[in-house]
């Protein structure tokens, strides 16, 4: 009897408490809704802010005129002239995309390999330590990556860059993309720095994804006589492809917006699209970081806000495309 009453007591007590908090559900719902609304409102407010701040330049030169030129020459801005627009930004869009592309090409395969090793191949004792080391890479401040890029990475990449310029650079047509001289400060170096910066993000997410793959699949594959490599391919990598893409999007987001580390190693050439990845360039984020403190030419500061606006738009477009790809993968 006493056991019976204990049981009911245990059940009824919490129930009683919940009924006392009538309206708690509604409150909770409101708080959660509010929080997500804040995110949405922030984004919208940011777009509006950038447009308002850049409005003078947009009104003076025209909304799309910034996208018709790859020449950024604030010193040539003349308040009495609205054409040609001295604030062309195509070279920055190009710089942002090409450095992110190089970063993704280098980082994704390595990150997947690192995650596979940690989850499937590393001795158990090593796994935890290795995981923390990868996470630690993500905690290094970007300005440190920049310093390291200048003083360690550039000297280390010098022979590689010289080699690329001397070999690929001499081939007709594609040689343009690798023509020298390579001085270190370049899209290529910026891409490599970015690769190292996004690697831990992608690796950490992939690690979690791989860890959640069904053990039964792995066991089944092993039972069928699959080698460890085949197990990793069939039972871990295959079912995780969507997840890997998702992880890459996270990394890409960081690569697109990364500012200081890129500014320090890209060479900050703003006058044209440099066709060679071994040449100097600039990204949308780097030009803002470089110039906003001394943006004293006519419409200069406003034009930087326009750059910020387009950076947001480019990031949104890239994200939407990437999400589409993930969705298509998941549907398969």
């Amino acid at each position, binding site marked *: 009897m006493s056991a019976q009453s204990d049981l009911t007591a245990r059940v009824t007590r919490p129930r009683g408490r919940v009924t006392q908090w009538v309206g708690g559900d509604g409150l909770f719902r409101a708080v959660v809704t509010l929080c997500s609304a804040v995110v949405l409102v922030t984004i919208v407010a940011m777009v509006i802010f950038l447009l308002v701040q850049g409005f003078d330049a947009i009104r003076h030169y025209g909304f799309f005129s910034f996208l018709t030129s790859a020449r950024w020459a604030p010193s040539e801005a003349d308040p009495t002239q609205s054409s040609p627009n001295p604030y062309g930004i195509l070279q920055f869009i190009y710089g942002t995309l090409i450095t992110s592309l190089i970063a993704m090409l280098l980082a994704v395969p390595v990150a997947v390999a690192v995650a596979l090793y940690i989850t499937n191949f590393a001795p158990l004792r090593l796994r935890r330590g290795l995981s923390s080391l990868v996470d630690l890479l993500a905690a290094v401040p970007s300005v440190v990556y920049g310093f390291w890029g200048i003083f360690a990475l*550039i000297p280390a990449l010098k022979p590689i860059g010289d080699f690329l310029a001397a070999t690929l650079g001499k081939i007709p047509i594609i040689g343009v993309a690798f023509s020298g001289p390579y*001085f270190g400060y370049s899209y290529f170096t910026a891409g490599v720095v970015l690769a190292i910066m996004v690697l831990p993000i992608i690796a950490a997410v992939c690690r979690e994804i791989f860890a959640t793959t069904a053990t039964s699949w792995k066991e089944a594959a092993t039972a069928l006589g699959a080698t460890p490599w085949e197990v990793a391919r069939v039972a871990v990598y295959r079912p995780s492809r969507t997840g890997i893409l998702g992880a890459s999007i996270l990394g890409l987001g960081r690569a697109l917006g990364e500012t200081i580390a890129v500014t320090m190693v890209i060479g900050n050439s703003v006058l044209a699209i440099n066709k060679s990845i071994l040449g100097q360039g600039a990204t949308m984020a780097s030009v803002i970081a470089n110039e906003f*403190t001394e*943006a004293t030419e006519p419409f200069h500061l406003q034009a930087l806000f326009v750059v910020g606006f387009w950076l947001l738009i480019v990031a949104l477009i890239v994200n939407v495309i990437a999400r589409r790809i993930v969705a298509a993968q998941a549907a398969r």
Partner: protein
Amino acid sequence: MRTATLRTGAVAIAMLGLLDACGAADTPSSAATSSTPGATAVCQGTTANPGYTNGIANQPSQATSLSGAGSTFVAPMMSVWTSGYAAKGVQVAYQSIGSGGGIKQVQSGTVDFGDSDAYMKDSDIALAKGPILQVPLVLAPVVVTYNLPGVTTALKLDGETVGKIFAGQITSWDDPAIKSQNSGVSLPTLPIATVHRSDGSGTTDIFTDFLTKESPSWVTALGGATKSRGKTVAWPSGIGGKGNEGVSGAVGQTSGAIGYVELGYALTQHLSYADVKNKSGAYIEPCNQTVLAASSGVTYPADLRFDLTDASDTHAYPITGTTWALIYQNQTSASKAAALLNFFSWVLTSGQDQTSSVNYQPLGKDLQRKCIDQLKKMTLNGQPIVQ
């Protein structure tokens, strides 16, 4: 290689706050390796601290703090001054945000004074809340620094050659134009990497002012004299580095690089720098004496807005600049006005004796007197403060 270890040591000591190292800063550098007898002789020997005593009589003031913002070029100097001046019970907070930022903050009146390496133009003053006193504080050379492994003597370069290099028209170190000025120096067949400022900068303004005066090729390449000088210009080629640090870092890291920085940065990073040909045709090493020479014999305008580049004195280093404190002529707070007068009067007298500890040069006698006179124009609600 000329790296002036002695003076670099003095910088380090000064950074530790041992300001008495000023004297040591003037010991002759290892620059004696320069092969221009004339230029070297000028730079040898010590220069005495100016020891100016013509300051404005101390004004009674209740203010215990002043705020300033602007030039990064003058920031190392300003930190020596502010820490020295703190002993007098007034904290001067200087934000090193760049000359353009300094001008903006003065225009909006958010600081007690600004500082810019390019003087405020009439169009800048029009945006301010009233007339501005522009007071030069120190002189400093912008040096043409380079990284050429194996070259141990100071290169000699004229303005036209430097202009062509930065315009991307001379692309290799063994170009005849460089060779002809440096007989006896074995110049490597190495591509030239030009390094310039990626941010707007007073240093750039001084450097491009010189190029505009001395290099027709530079002016043509940039599309005219109005476009070839400024805090930002449309660099036809090269690597952009952020700040003096960014440029000196890139030059130090890149063999074959050439850039321009304020002298102190070249010294602390042990970079080589060139002797530059001046208006009278001599190749001049940047040092205390040659910078001071650039400011002598100049007729200064009443508003003290002038350029010191390409001066005519035979010993003048041609890429010399200054930095201007920007102060509202008419002040509305008696205590702030008195504090500003006291601080800048101190900077222009005792403060000048500390300049060489951080590789800046004190103002010449004529200029210093004019600066004090400029300060005396300050008014309080329209009434003169100093009689």
